[in-house]
């Protein structure tokens, strides 16, 4: 009755949210001579996360387990922050599946196993993990960090500035605190530690191998997620290809596009 992978529709879509913002970042303006405040630095990070009109990404996700490595390959098209169309390329049992997000509240799944039926998906599915990976919804869905978290400067480490972030009153997140390592020159995020209220480290996300994928744009070639609650279980997200500002139209983010492209 249900294809087991329809249950993971939401998270696959959410894969494309915040990290996509991280992939395409324009070089920031030269920092001012005076020390930059935590709020100003975080604002620059958020601005650069949204520095493109649309984007295409080809990912390979490697879920590392004691029994071996599982790989999932998919492509994502994105326009703005809300419209997103994802297609699985591998493994074979999910190949052909697709997911469409028209907004944060409207999602669809394309189910080849059911005659290519397009099914409206409840947003509760965003809470599911995808194929046992360590990617969660909260870090994937946060595009703008500043509205959720209040930052504080917490020192430096090499050329990186460390920010400590606390969830603002009235906001909800799985992680009450974050610790973030930022490259102020590019306003890129090198590492995030996700903490509970007592400061205990729950997860870590590292962003590595930044390359220029378009003039003035830098994207991390690899992201590594480590879940310390699950015995340091790791998931790698490898960017195979990315292009930004491709001129996508709204027509390319409809149920018709989901079934016909």
């Amino acid at each position, binding site marked *: 009755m249900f294809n087991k992978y329809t249950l993971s529709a939401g998270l696959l879509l959410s894969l494309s949210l915040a990290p996509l913002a991280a992939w395409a970042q324009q070089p920031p303006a030269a920092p001012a001579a005076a020390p930059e405040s935590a709020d100003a630095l975080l604002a620059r990070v958020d601005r650069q996360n949204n520095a493109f009109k649309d984007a295409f990404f080809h990912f390979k996700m490697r*879920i590392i387990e004691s029994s071996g490595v599982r790989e999932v390959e998919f492509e994502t098209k994105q326009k703005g922050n809300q419209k997103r169309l994802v297609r699985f390329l591998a493994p074979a049992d999910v190949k052909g599946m697709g997911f469409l997000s028209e907004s944060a509240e409207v999602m669809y799944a394309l189910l080849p196993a059911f005659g290519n039926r397009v099914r409206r998906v409840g947003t509760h599915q965003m809470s599911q993990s995808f194929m046992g990976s360590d990617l969660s919804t909260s870090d994937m869905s946060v595009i703008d960090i500043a509205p959720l978290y209040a930052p504080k400067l917490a020192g430096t480490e090499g050329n990186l500035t460390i920010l400590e972030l606390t969830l603002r009153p009235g906001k909800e997140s799985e992680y009450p605190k974050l610790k973030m390592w930022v490259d102020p020159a590019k306003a890129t995020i090198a590492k995030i530690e996700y903490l509970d209220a007592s400061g205990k480290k729950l997860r870590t996300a590292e962003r590595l191998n930044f390359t220029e994928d378009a003039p003035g744009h830098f994207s991390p070639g690899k992201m590594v997620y480590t879940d310390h609650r699950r015995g340091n279980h790791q998931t790698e997200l490898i960017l195979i290809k990315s292009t930004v500002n491709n001129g996508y139209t709204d027509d390319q983010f409809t149920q018709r596009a989901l079934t016909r492209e």
Partner: protein
Amino acid sequence: MRRLILSCALLLALGQTARADVDLKFSGWISSDIRFRVLGEERPLPNPVPAQWSLLKNGFSRNENRIRAALNLKVGTKVRAVADAELQLYGFSDIRDIDSTTLRDRVDPYYLEVHAAFIDINSLFGDVIPRFDLRIGRQTVPWGAADKFNPISNINTLDLSDPLQFGRMLANNMIRADWNPIGDLTFTAVLIPIFRPAQLPRTAPSALLDPLRPAPLQNQGIRAALDQERGLYVPIVDPNTGVLIPSGRSLTIQADVLAPEITAANMQFAFRTGAKIAGQDVGLSYYHGRFGVPTPAWSVVTGSVDKNVVQTTLVYPKTDVIGVEMAGSIQRLGGLGYWIEAGVNIPAEIRMGIYDAITSPGNLRPLEYQLDPSTGKYLRVTFNPSDLPPRPVVVEGTPFVKATIGADYTIAGRAYINVQYVHGFIDEFGAGRAARPRRNSIDIREDPRIESRLGDYIVAGVDVKTLHDRLLLRLFGVLKVPSVDLETRLWDDYAPTGVLFPQIIWTVADATELMLGGFVLLGDRSTKFGDPAAGASEIFVKARVSF
């Protein structure tokens, strides 16, 4: 089979050297399915092919291997062609005589099913009529917001032969046009030239061929009169010894099925429009065609009183279905997903003619039944041809509604729950009430239970993922609840019945699954799922690798 492989290889080779804008994808799977039937009622021969595939009380009910392959060919962005075929090896033999042992298709039967063979043309009229798409060929058109139980999805009939699938759509040749003028607004039109009947389960014919089952008539008085007449053929229980004494007479029912003629008048067609209102998906649809499960339309009583042969003919009921659907997500309830789907069926009435060829073999005489006020029972009478009363109704012309309402939710990111209320199961059709089989199949004196033709069911399932999603534990179930017939306001003579469907799905490696499970039918033989025609409980082992 060899030609298929060669054709695939040729296509692949052509793909290597063809135009740069040609994209060819090949996919499929290989699977095995072994099932063991438990505590069923044996279905005696004659059986259709294959002969070794007889349904024993306890025995293997499936021993299948399937090889499925799909080709997806894209030519630029405008044209796409899809071919999807599945070779099924039964795993049983059909050996009847010495000659059949020399024939491979009798020693190792198989069949080839084509799930898709169509051509897509996107934006057929270019910018003149943007986003007008055409699809021609063998295809399925799944409509409806609900999961699996879709009262508005009637374009394709169902394969009911595998109970674990709860009805899988059968592809058919059709022409489909879609137009997406703006945003989420869509219009779809489908034309199906030739009707394709549903595939029934191997146990289904017993619902008609068992001469001691209640006749499928709406009028319970006439039904009781027919049952009374069949008492001649029921074994008698010796009151002293309790042993069954054969009646010495036989009653055999033969059933022929009359498929619709392949005329323009018998074409099916359907329309649908869909849109989004306040973030919720809504749809309106119309279908004109037939229901996929045949219904008795007339019977001719032949032979003799001692060796009575009733030749029954079944037809596929005509119907029009007006459908509405709605689906969305409720943010205030944690993103709960919901759907509502309903179809108003307007069937053509079917009345059953019963004719006597025993007493008047050269001139069929209709058997008619009239209510005797003094006894309150229906008796067989002979009318003048000009005074014949209406024949008894099998399918009422009264419109009826089939509907599904459901919701799904995820708990703690691990447990997925799906619950639906279904009014009118996938194989149910028609308003009114009908008699269920008797608990004691040979006791004609037992009054059969009377139930609404359209039952009410709770269908629910839960999936729990463990071991980093490698292991999926699934429990799915169906429970029939008491129903009331809206026309007569009569409640069912209720007896509990349902289905339990537990499964363990283990992803042993990428694209490779092992499945172990059971399909447990609950209820006595007078109930929907306990009825021998519904099949029997099974345990199964499956394996599948996708490529």
